[in-house]
C-alpha cells in the first residue's frame, strides 16, 4: 500500500505580513505572504495552512482582502484559521478560495458552528484546532485565543468533543514546542490521534523529516510545521523551503 503523508507548512499572518513565533510569542517578521505562497507552489507543497494567529486575541476582523489575494496564488489545498466566529465568516472564506476553515477560540462558546458549516460544506471542510500547554502540575490543558485563554479542557476529551460535533480533522499544536525545533510532543500526538477516528495533524516543534516520521508512527495522519519551512536552520535567517523527501506509509 502506498500512501503519501501530507506535509503542511503553517503560515502565520498578521497585519498582512508573515511571522513566526516561539512558544506563541516573539513574532518575527518573515516576509510577504504572496511571494512565499508562490515559492510553495514551485516547491509543490502538499497543502498550506494560513493562520491569522492573533485575530481572536486582538479582536480583529478577518482580513478578507489579504487572504483572497493569498488564495489567488495558491494552487494547492488551503486552510484558513483566525477570527472565525460565524457561519457567514466561514462562507466568505470558502468563497475566497479556501477549502477548509480552522476554528479554535469560537468553539468554546459555540460548538454548533461546526455542524452549521459541515451541513453545507461537508465535514472535511471543518478543522478543529487545539492548542495545548502543560499546566503547573504537568497536565495537558487546552488554551484558546492564541494561547492566552485557559479553558481547563483536557485535550483528549476536547478532541472527542470536537469529533462528536462533526469536525473532519483536528490540528493539534503544542504551545511549548512551537518554534523550538525540539520535535513534536509525541505523547500529546499519540494520545489525541488514538482517541479519535478523524485525521489528526501534528503541529509544533518539528525540526526535520525524522520528526515527521515519528509523529506518523504515533498515529498522526499529516504533519505540519512553521519554522523549518521558513528558516534556514534554528537561529538562522529566512529561507522558504519544502522537503523533497516523501513520507510513504
Amino acid at each position, binding site marked *: 500500500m502506498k500512501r503519501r503523508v*501530507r506535509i503542511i507548512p503553517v503560515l502565520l499572518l498578521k497585519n498582512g505580513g508573515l511571522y513566526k513565533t516561539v512558544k506563541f510569542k516573539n513574532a518575527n517578521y518573515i516576509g510577504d505572504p504572496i511571494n512565499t505562497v508562490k515559492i510553495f507552489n514551485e516547491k509543490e507543497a502538499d497543502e498550506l495552512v494560513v493562520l491569522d494567529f492573533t485575530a481572536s486575541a486582538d479582536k480583529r476582523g478577518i482580513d478578507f482582502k489579504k487572504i483572497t489575494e493569498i488564495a489567488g496564488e495558491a*494552487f494547492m489545498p488551503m486552510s484558513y484559521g483566525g477570527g472565525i466566529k460565524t457561519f457567514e465568516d466561514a462562507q466568505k472564506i470558502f468563497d475566497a478560495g479556501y477549502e477548509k476553515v480552522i476554528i479554535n477560540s469560537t468553539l468554546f462558546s459555540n460548538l454548533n458552528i461546526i455542524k452549521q458549516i459541515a*451541513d453545507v*460544506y461537508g465535514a*472535511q471542510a471543518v478543522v478543529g484546532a487545539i492548542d495545548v500547554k502543560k499546566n503547573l502540575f504537568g497536565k495537558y490543558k487546552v488554551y484558546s485565543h492564541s494561547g492566552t485563554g485557559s479553558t481547563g479542557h483536557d485535550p483528549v476529551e476536547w478532541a472527542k468533543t470536537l469529533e462528536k460535533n462533526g469536525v473532519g480533522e483536528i490540528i493539534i499544536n503544542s504551545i511549548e514546542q512551537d518554534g523550538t525545533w525540539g520535535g513534536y510532543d509525541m505523547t500529546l500526538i499519540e494520545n489525541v490521534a488514538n482517541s479519535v477516528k478523524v485525521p489528526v495533524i501534528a503541529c509544533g516543534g518539528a525540526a526535520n523529516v525524522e520528526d515527521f516520521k515519528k509523529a506518523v508512527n504515533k498515529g498522526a495522519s499529516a504533519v505540519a510545521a512553521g519554522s523549518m519551512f521558513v528558516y534556514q536552520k534554528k537561529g538562522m535567517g529566512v529561507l522558504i523551503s519544502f522537503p523533497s523527501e516523501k513520507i510513504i506509509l
Partner: protein
Amino acid sequence: MIAIVNYGVGNLTSVLNMFRRIGADAVITDKAEEIKRADRILLPGVGNFDTCMQRFNASGLRSEVEKKAHEEKRPLLGICVGAQMITRGSEEGKEKGLGWVNAETIRFQLNDQPQLKIPNMGWNELIVSKESPLWNNLPPEPRFYFAHSYHFKFDDETMVTGKAYYGYEYPVAFRNGNIFGTQFHPEKSLKYGMKILENFSKMEL
C-alpha cells in the same frame, strides 16, 4: 467560454483562479443565459450529495446544463461531488443522481482496514487505466488532491479512465463521450491539476 456552474455550493473561486492562470476564458455563473453562451461546462460540487442535488435541481440551471451535455454535446467536467452527481445516485443520500454514466456512488469499504481514516484526505497517484484527452501531456508521476468519503462504482470498466489506491483500487475518473468526471480536485493539484484543466479548456471533441 467555460461556465463554472454556480448553484450555491462548492469552491468555485479556486477553479476560476486556476483557469485564469492558464489563460482560459471562464466565468462563475448562476444565469441560464450565460450557460447557454458557454462552449464548455464545469460542474463543481462539495459537501453533501443530497444538498448538492437539491440545490442544482432548484437552481433553474439543470435543463440548460443538460442541453449542453446531451444536445450540443459540449465538453462537461464534473469535479468531486459534481462528478458523483453524474452517477445514478449515492449511498450518502436519497436524491436521484443525474444518471449520465452507468455507475453508483458508494461509501469507502474500509472496515477491515481501520488504520485508513475516512474521509480519504490527501494526495494519491493517478493510475491511468484508459486514454483520455484530460491525460494529455501530464507531468510524470501525476498526483492529485482528494477529500472524499464516497467513490464511484461502475457497472463495468468501459467508462473508467483513471483509478487510485486507498485501501483498494477504485475508479477516480471517467469519460462518457463529452462527459468527464474526476473524484479529485484538479483546481487544488498544483501543476498536475493545472494540466488537466488546461486540457479541458482546449479539448476539441
